[in-house]
């Protein structure tokens, strides 16, 4: 979203993922080759045990990039807002 190639990602965690990471929001700068949601999940999983715990049941974790639902192949750019959360249960 941002043009600044060095801009960090804003990572948001919701519901039980937030409880596992212990934080709702963090700013992180993964290496440049982390260019998709799938690669970001791999990098986050390797980066800390708490993030790994939040992401361990990968099939039940949903993702949004810049507030649109995203899949493993969705591209990630510096400055993006990337949210991870469980399947939604509103209504």
């Amino acid at each position: 979203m941002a043009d600044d190639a060095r801009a960090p990602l804003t990572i948001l965690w919701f519901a039980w993922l937030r409880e596992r990471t212990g934080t709702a929001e963090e700013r992180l700068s993964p290496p440049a080759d982390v260019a998709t949601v799938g690669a970001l999940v791999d990098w986050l999983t390797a980066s800390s045990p708490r993030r790994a715990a939040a992401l361990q049941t990968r099939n039940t974790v949903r993702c949004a990039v810049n507030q649109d639902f995203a899949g493993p192949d969705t591209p990630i750019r510096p400055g993006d807002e990337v949210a991870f959360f469980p399947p939604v249960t509103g209504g």
Partner: protein
Amino acid sequence: MATVRVQTQDFDVGAEYRALTEGHSDIGGIGCFIGTVRANAVGPQLTALTLEHYPGMTERAISAIVTEAERRWTLLGCTVIHRVGSMRPGENIVLVLAASPHRQAALDATAFLIDWLKTKAPFWKQEAFADGTATWVDAREADDAAAARWQNS
């Protein structure tokens, strides 16, 4: 013409109905769905339901669902209000109103809006019980099936 709100406070169904229909003489029917907090039948007593959401994306997602409803049916207005925060059994959670010249469109659009809201808007429910435990509500396959029936129409 659509009203979309995410709020902690309760809503007044009559006031929302009047706001939707005021000044209209072309409406032939209004569909209405109100979702409420249901007490559990078995196990420890449910004391509170807490709704968490993703501010910003929630409003975007609901507006996109409303736009899709407006594409599929002739709507003269619709209202979607979803509460967040802590609620007790019996309290209102969500209101959907859809006004159309004809009843079938009003009823179908209302069902569509709540079915898609349940599966495509970023809300999460956590239940708190009298024994002090709290659990996140799991997504239900029945909700996915209800949303999927609108996929090809």
